[in-house]
């Protein structure tokens, strides 16, 4: 039906197609507006603005504010009038002679407002994109296969940021954010649908396409790595994890987010599980991690180990302790002294590695606090641990510039780390 109405009685293609997602073009059959306008940057920018706010009343002042702020024309309103006149000519040339402007693009001026009226022979890809997503959302409730197919069509339409990513204009930012968020929403909905059906290969294909458009969206990488793990591609998952953590660290300047830490744990778990098939391999790996001292880990893993230990331990046993070591508890040392904090963490790592026992676990909770899990501390052993820490610290750093407080708390079953 749509195909028939795309041609007039002389066989000319009559639908004007406006492409906005991933680039910009206005075309009808073989003809494109970029050619008709002789690539006039200003005219194209004005048309892009009108298409973004199509069917909306626009004040000339707002258009000037957004598009011509740096222009020093003495009469900017008159300048806009001239630009719009030229734009109308270009649009006229593009559509077939004798056709009504109201079927295509018609710029009107009423009661002090400009408005681009879009006729019924125009298709704008962003509208199609939004409609497909709305349809998909509706279908999610009744027919997940149809929802998935509809979402796929939407994903196929999104070829990149609104009007292409190379162009930076302030007024474009919220529009771009909006379509980007819509795209991500579809990707996540589709990934969840595919996950429910166990179609991990399809999730990988989906994520690879999404990453080519949104390379820094962490959640897509997490879906991809999870799917790799489900398909047993552990080495691929590991190398992708390494690659993406490096990229995101460079981009955002941040270390692992909770989401990535979780996926790192899943990779480790899968790796160990697979390796169990080969006893010799397990032995090799265990030997690699053999260590006579305590175990140093990050705060997230410390929480996990603590809570695991708490679940396993006998509730009547009162010989397990948590120790909190705080730098500068009295506030004498300036907390903003990054050099001192760096030196302190290096020294404390050395001291605790030497002082604590095999089976103890410690972690840097934040810049100035360390938590240690000390199981099975007998007969006033906390005093001796405290004394050893101070003694080893003095041996290591004679000047001992640190103001420290060491506190021991017996572990109680009701206390969990969150």
């Amino acid at each position, binding site marked *: 039906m749509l195909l028939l109405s795309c041609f007039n009685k002389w066989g000319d293609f009559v639908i004007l197609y406006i492409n906005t997602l991933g680039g910009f073009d206005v075309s009808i059959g073989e003809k494109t507006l970029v050619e008709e306008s002789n690539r006039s940057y200003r005219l194209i920018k004005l048309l892009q603005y009108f298409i973004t706010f199509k069917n909306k009343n626009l004040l000339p002042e*707002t258009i000037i504010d*957004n598009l011509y702020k740096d222009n020093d024309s003495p009469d900017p309103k008159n300048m806009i009038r001239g630009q719009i006149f030229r734009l109308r000519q270009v649009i006229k040339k593009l559509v077939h002679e004798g056709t009504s402007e109201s079927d295509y693009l018609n710029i009107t001026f009423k009661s002090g407002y400009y408005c681009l009226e879009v006729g019924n022979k125009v298709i704008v890809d962003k509208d199609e994109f939004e409609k497909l997503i709305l349809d998909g959302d509706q279908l999610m409730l009744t027919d997940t296969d149809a929802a998935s197919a509809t979402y796929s069509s939407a994903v196929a339409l999104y070829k990149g940021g609104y009007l292409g990513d190379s162009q930076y204009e*302030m007024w474009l930012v*919220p*529009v771009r*954010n*909006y379509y*980007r*968020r819509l795209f991500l929403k579809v990707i996540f909905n589709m990934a969840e649908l595919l996950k429910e059906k166990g179609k991990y290969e399809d999730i990988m294909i989906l994520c690879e396409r999404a990453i080519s458009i949104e390379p820094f969206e962490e959640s897509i990488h997490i879906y991809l790595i999870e799917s790799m793990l489900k398909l047993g591609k552990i080495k691929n998952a590991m190398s992708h994890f390494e690659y993406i953590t490096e990229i995101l660290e460079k981009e955002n300047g941040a270390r692992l987010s909770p989401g990535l830490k979780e996926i790192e744990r899943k990779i480790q778990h899968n790796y160990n599980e697979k390796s169990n098939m080969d006893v010799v391999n397990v032995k090799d790996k265990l030997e690699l991690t053999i260590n006579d001292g305590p175990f140093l880990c990050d705060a997230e893993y410390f929480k996990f180990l603590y809570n695991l230990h708490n679940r396993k331990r006998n509730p009547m046993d009162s010989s397990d302790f948590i120790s909190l070591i705080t730098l500068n508890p009295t506030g004498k040392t300036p907390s903003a002294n990054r050099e001192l904090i760096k030196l302190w963490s290096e020294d404390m790592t050395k001291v605790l590695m030497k002082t604590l026992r095999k089976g103890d676990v410690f972690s840097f909770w934040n810049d100035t606090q360390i938590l240690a899990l000390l199981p099975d501390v007998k007969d006033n052993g906390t005093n001796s641990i405290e004394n050893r820490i101070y003694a080893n610290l003095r041996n290591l750093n004679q000047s001992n510039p640190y103001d420290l407080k060491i506190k021991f708390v017996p572990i109680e079953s009701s206390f969990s780390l969150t």
Partner: protein
Amino acid sequence: MEYPTKNDFYLKFKAITSSSNKFLDYILIEVSNNFFGAVNIKPELVIGMKFSNLVFDKDNNLLDFHELQYHMIPNSRRKFEKYVKELGRWYLVNIFGDNGTELILFYSDITKLKNGQTPLQNDEMKEEEMIAKSV
């Protein structure tokens, strides 16, 4: 002539910029004290959210940011009339992004003006007037 301000409220945003100082988005940092009373949305549910996420927040979408989002850019000043169906009130929405880094969205209740009532025709005002006369 003074108008009641009980249902007026504001939201304050701070711009997020890239390392090259390009505007990326806004983050909601503050709402007026009467925000909950005026719109029945708990401030703690929305403060700290990026504006682009607020647009998609179905649970707290009373103010329909979808329509306003395209004007939420630094240094912009816009004014719109808006009917908030759920509250049964007309608002004059002022987008005031004066200094580039912060932006205020001010909702001013104009229901009575839209309904063609002057403040003196307002029942509350009449009541207050009567009380004042009786004292």
